[in-house]
């Protein structure tokens, strides 16, 4: 069964959290009764102290973790109720930048990026064209044939970003994508995200970078202790709780 896009028409929101609670196996409550709507084409910052639940919230969307209670809708489909074989189709629509990069250690930089395309069944020809282009955009073309262990932390992060954007996903989930980047490089990456967002891709980005949040003047959702404590259009990163 194809993952069905035709449902999108009747849906206003790309993402919809209904009273989502997540308690991990060891009893830690990472999310408490989260309700959140994100429209198609939005650029949302997810901010909040370390351990607030930002990564957990993102994991709900691409189904790395299931909510303990509540429902998560993506593109008109209930993510919680997806059948096993539908999960890969969901994930191919989402580009993910992981906080810990998660590059495949046995593949080179170029192969890591190609893999995200191969998975979707893209043609060899298209892959050969697209991969160098996206590596160029994050400034990693020179290191295309290096293995992850052979490049610096910031370089690994940029490969992770390239992999997330290479197959033109509907949604980009970026978990602290600039944590290991210097301000100049971070700024370039944010410009890249801006361009992608203007082309219609929804972006959710968890970050601790006050400069960036304050600069961009986008929607800011602040989480603390697993709850949404503020949600402002065109917000700033505020110190106060």
């Amino acid at each position, binding site marked *: 069964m194809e993952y069905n896009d035709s449902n999108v028409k009747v849906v206003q929101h790309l993402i919809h959290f209904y009273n989502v609670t997540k308690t991990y196996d060891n009893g830690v409550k990472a999310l408490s009764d989260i309700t959140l709507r994100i429209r198609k084409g939005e650029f949302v910052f997810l901010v909040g102290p370390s351990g607030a639940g930002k990564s957990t919230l993102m994991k709900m969307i691409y189904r790395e973790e299931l909510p303990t209670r509540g429902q998560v809708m993506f593109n008109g489909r209930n993510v919680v109720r997806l059948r096993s074989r539908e999960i890969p189709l969901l994930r191919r629509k989402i580009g993910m930048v992981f906080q810990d990069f998660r590059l495949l250690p*046995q593949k080179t930089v170029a192969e890591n990026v190609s893999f995200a395309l191969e998975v979707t069944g893209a043609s*060899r020809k298209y892959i050969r064209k697209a991969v160098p282009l996206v590596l160029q955009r994050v400034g990693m073309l020179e290191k295309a044939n290096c293995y992850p262990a052979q490049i610096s932390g910031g370089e690994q992060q940029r490969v992770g970003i390239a992999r997330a954007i290479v197959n033109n996903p509907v949604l980009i989930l970026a978990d602290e994508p600039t944590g290991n980047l210097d301000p100049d490089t971070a700024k370039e990456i944010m410009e890249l995200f801006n361009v992608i967002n203007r082309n219609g891709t929804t972006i959710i980005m968890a970050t601790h970078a006050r400069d960036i949040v304050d600069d961009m003047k986008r929607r800011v959702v602040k989480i603390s202790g697993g709850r949404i404590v503020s949600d402002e259009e065109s917000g700033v990163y505020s110190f106060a709780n």
Partner: protein
Amino acid sequence: MRISTILYCIREALVSILRNGWMTVASISIVAVSLVILGGSVLLVMNTGYLTQRLESKVEISVFLEEELAAADVKEIGEKIKSTAGVAEVKFIPKEKALQEMKKSLGSRAQVLEDLEKNPLPDAYRVKAEDANQVPALAGSFEQLDGVEMVRYGKGVVEKLLSVTQWLRVASWTLMGILGVSALFLISTSIRMSVFARRREISIMKLLGATNWYIRAPFLMEGLIMGLAGALLAVAVVYLGYIALVDKIKVSLPFINLVPGEEVFTVVPGALLGLGILIGIFGSLISIHRFLSDKKA
């Protein structure tokens, strides 16, 4: 499956085999060693069978006939013996020949037999059974025949021989059974270990939207290639080893007869290769299964 997918599998598998370096070497060696053990035990079973069959084929039954039977009766008894189920070979020994043999076996003491007025020995049939185990039963049935005075077979010898050959059969089959199961276990465990070492990779692939089959296929191909490589190695070792053994034994222990190499190598290599490939594929399939589970994700 599209050709590009198959090519993808083969490419990924080969790359992974090369990059995983000694992990690959370890897995292949385990497959090879296990199959060598298995192949060796098959050879043992075959040779044991061969040897025991040759030994057992030597067991004979002597059927002594009554005195002064008509030639027709003698012939009839011979026909009856021949037609009994389980009889392999029948040979008539006239009493004159029996006396000659007796004289020969007595050596210089033989002149004692010269004093005899008439040949005291009876005509006899020497019978070979198809299966040494049937000897006692056959002997019993011959005893019932009209015109048969007495039936003899090396009672103690047959039982002794049977005890040896039975023991050999039991031991070699048991051994092959144990070794077969062990080989399967060892190979699948080694594949599980190599998949286990890459569980993080598998989980990342899943997060990138790879289907279970997309992840599984290169592992299968890898398992197949490694199983094949291990089996080829095993066949080579078993083949060369066996040829060498046969040669060596021909010189140093000429009275031991081994199954000739050509006969052995009509079945063994095919079986080992098939087994290696099957184990490689199913080993990978089973071991990768747990890391593909969607329970959590």
